[in-house]
């Protein structure tokens, strides 16, 4: 039987220094896999910032493992002994379960993150899968999608900036008609603004102490730079305020917000304060129609959603296990498939031979009657072979598959798995 072997490393057992050395681009991963295919392996290489893994299918698992370890050591530019302690080596069902967990985001740094599914797909497309790896990666993609569809593992935000954007959606719904004021043109605010913009919001104004930097960020978002002293004038024109200055005191005052809200005809104002010390006066949250979230509030939301993802991960683990079991049954059935094929070919040979022998006696039959004879004899063969075929496949799911296959070959005098047929018995 073709064995499945996984050799890899991830953030769980390897420091970033080693992961950096082993990381390859998707194209390079594809080249490596195709190189292994030239040596007779089925191969797929999955490389992300958190892991580099080689999936191999080969007749001899020991050879596959040695080859994989040597290849990864070569990529890292290290001796095999140096990388071995930082590699995991898994076989067959354990390897399949690992990939299904990876595809489901269960082995990710942030549980349920969605990017990995695309990376698994990309690796499979670039790689050189054969029958086993093709099935393995198809099932992995299915398991990943199923985990996300049937659980909430990937639904909630996993970072402060995305949590801020999702909370803004809780107020305004679709952000396409929402405009944003970015106060402070630093990296933190820019990240939150980017998250809002990715959901359709328009970054209308950028206010910063350094005018040039504010203009630069405003240009990037096709917004307008405003002076930080002129905030009060633009507050009534925006729906979301993101503030992240390094100012020591309050930048957005309660009275300015109250005044701005008065001119908004009840439309809410959502304020995100990412600065420490805080930029927005805490009293703003008390104003009707204003919702103020500071960094602690956002971190509490993220912590809760991550805890929720971990809870959902338990259900996603079940999905991965079910898929791994399905793969195991399929993989084990490969043991008996040649025996079944031989048995069926032998039976079909017997049927064809007997019909040929009776050809003279069947000569007086019409074409229609001959077709009936063909159909009936084929049906008899199929019905006779159906129970042993099913039993063989069932036995393959347990440990007895190969002994059953041997027994069938022996009883019916079938050839080996290389396709040579048994002798058609003479009557």
């Amino acid at each position: 039987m073709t064995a499945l072997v996984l050799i890899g490393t991830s953030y769980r057992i390897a420091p970033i220094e080693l992961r950096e050395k082993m990381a390859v681009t998707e194209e390079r991963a594809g080249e490596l896999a195709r190189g292994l295919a030239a040596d007779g392996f089925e191969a797929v290489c999955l490389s992300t910032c958190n892991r580099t893994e080689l999936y191999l299918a080969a007749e001899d698992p020991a050879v596959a493992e040695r080859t994989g370890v040597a290849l990864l050591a070569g990529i890292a530019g290290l001796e095999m002994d140096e990388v071995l302690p930082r590699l995991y080596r898994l076989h067959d069902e354990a390897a399949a379960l690992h990939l299904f967990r990876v595809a489901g985001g269960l082995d990710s740094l942030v549980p349920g993150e969605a990017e990995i599914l695309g990376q698994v797909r990309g690796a499979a497309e670039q790689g050189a899968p054969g029958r086993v790896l093709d099935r393995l990666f198809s099932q992995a993609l299915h398991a990943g999608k199923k985990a996300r569809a049937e659980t909430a593992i990937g639904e909630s935000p996993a970072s402060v900036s995305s949590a801020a954007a999702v909370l803004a959606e809780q107020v305004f719904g679709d952000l396409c008609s929402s405009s944003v004021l970015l106060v402070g043109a630093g990296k933190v605010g820019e990240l939150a603004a980017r998250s809002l913009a990715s959901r359709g919001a328009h970054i209308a104004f950028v206010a910063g102490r350094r005018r040039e930097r504010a203009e630069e960020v405003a240009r990037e978002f096709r917004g307008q730079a405003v002076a930080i002293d002129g905030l009060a004038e633009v507050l009534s024109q925006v729906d979301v305020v993101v503030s992240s200055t390094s100012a020591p005191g309050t930048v957005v005052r309660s009275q300015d917000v109250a005044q701005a809200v008065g001119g908004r005809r009840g439309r809410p104002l959502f304020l995100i304060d990412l600065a420490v010390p805080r930029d927005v006066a805490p009293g703003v949250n008390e104003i009707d129609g204003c919702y103020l979230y500071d960094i602690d509030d956002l971190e509490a939301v993220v912590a809760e959603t991550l805890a929720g993802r971990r809870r959902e991960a338990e259900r996603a683990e079940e999905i991965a296990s079910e898929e791994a079991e399905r793969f195991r049954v399929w993989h084990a059935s490969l043991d008996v498939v040649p025996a079944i094929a031989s048995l069926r070919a032998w039976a079909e040979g017997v049927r064809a031979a007997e019909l040929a022998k009776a050809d003279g006696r069947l000569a007086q039959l019409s074409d229609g009657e001959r077709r009936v004879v063909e159909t009936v004899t084929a049906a008899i063969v199929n019905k006779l072979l159906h129970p042993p075929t099913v039993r063989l496949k069932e036995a393959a799911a347990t440990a007895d598959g190969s002994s059953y296959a041997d027994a069938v070959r022996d009883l019916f005098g079938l050839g080996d798995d290389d396709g040579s047929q048994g002798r058609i018995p003479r009557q």
Partner: protein
Amino acid sequence: MVELLFWPALVAYGEAAVAFAGATRRPGGRAGRLATWGVRVGWLAQTGLLIAQAAGAGRFPWTTWAGSLNLFVWLVVSAYLFWGCRSRFRLLGLAVMPLAVILFLLAYAGGGTDEAGGSRYSSLFLAVHVGLVSVGFAGLTLAAALASLYLWQERRLKRHESAILRVPLPPLLTLDELTARTIAVSLPALTLGIAVGLTRLARDGGRPDALMAVTLAAWGLYGAFLILRFGLGWRGRRVAYVAVAGLVLVLAVHFGLPLTHFS
């Protein structure tokens, strides 16, 4: 036959109410889907029940207080089904379905799910008056449920509840818009229903009673809502309170019906 349809409808509505409660603990799970299916199955069974009642009576059959309550529940659930099929609005069922179960049970206890009896009013008048008022009240009940969700969501945002994303509700602005639109659609139906009733009252030389006064008060309150919302541009918490307060009057009319119209 009628009895045979009542129990499946009640059980399905009850299952939906319980499942909606479960869906708040584990959104995205099976509970939400079970709840939606409960509403659908219950609605189908109740629709069958109403058809059986109408076929058995051969005229407008919901002439009693309990009968009109039965019709009212069906209208509320029908209106909810319109939104409830969308996953983001599933939790609206948390506000609607327990109320529907209680009112449906009351309708059953009052005989409103039995074969219909006779009435001194004509079928046409009852169909128009009761039908329009029930449609109006059903819409206003749904609007109150939407407003309740608004207040809940608003409170969660104000209090910075960390679990706010675990139980996703429709956005504030959407809830606000839907509440206003539902009232804007329901109030004309109620207005027509009231007008038909008053015309009939004037023709028969009847006298207004307390219930009519409460109905007119509800009408006035929701009319004021529309003026505040669309005329003065009020939004948010203040108008949501008005919508919820209106439900008290709607329920007062329903529970006052046996004292004035069916005593």
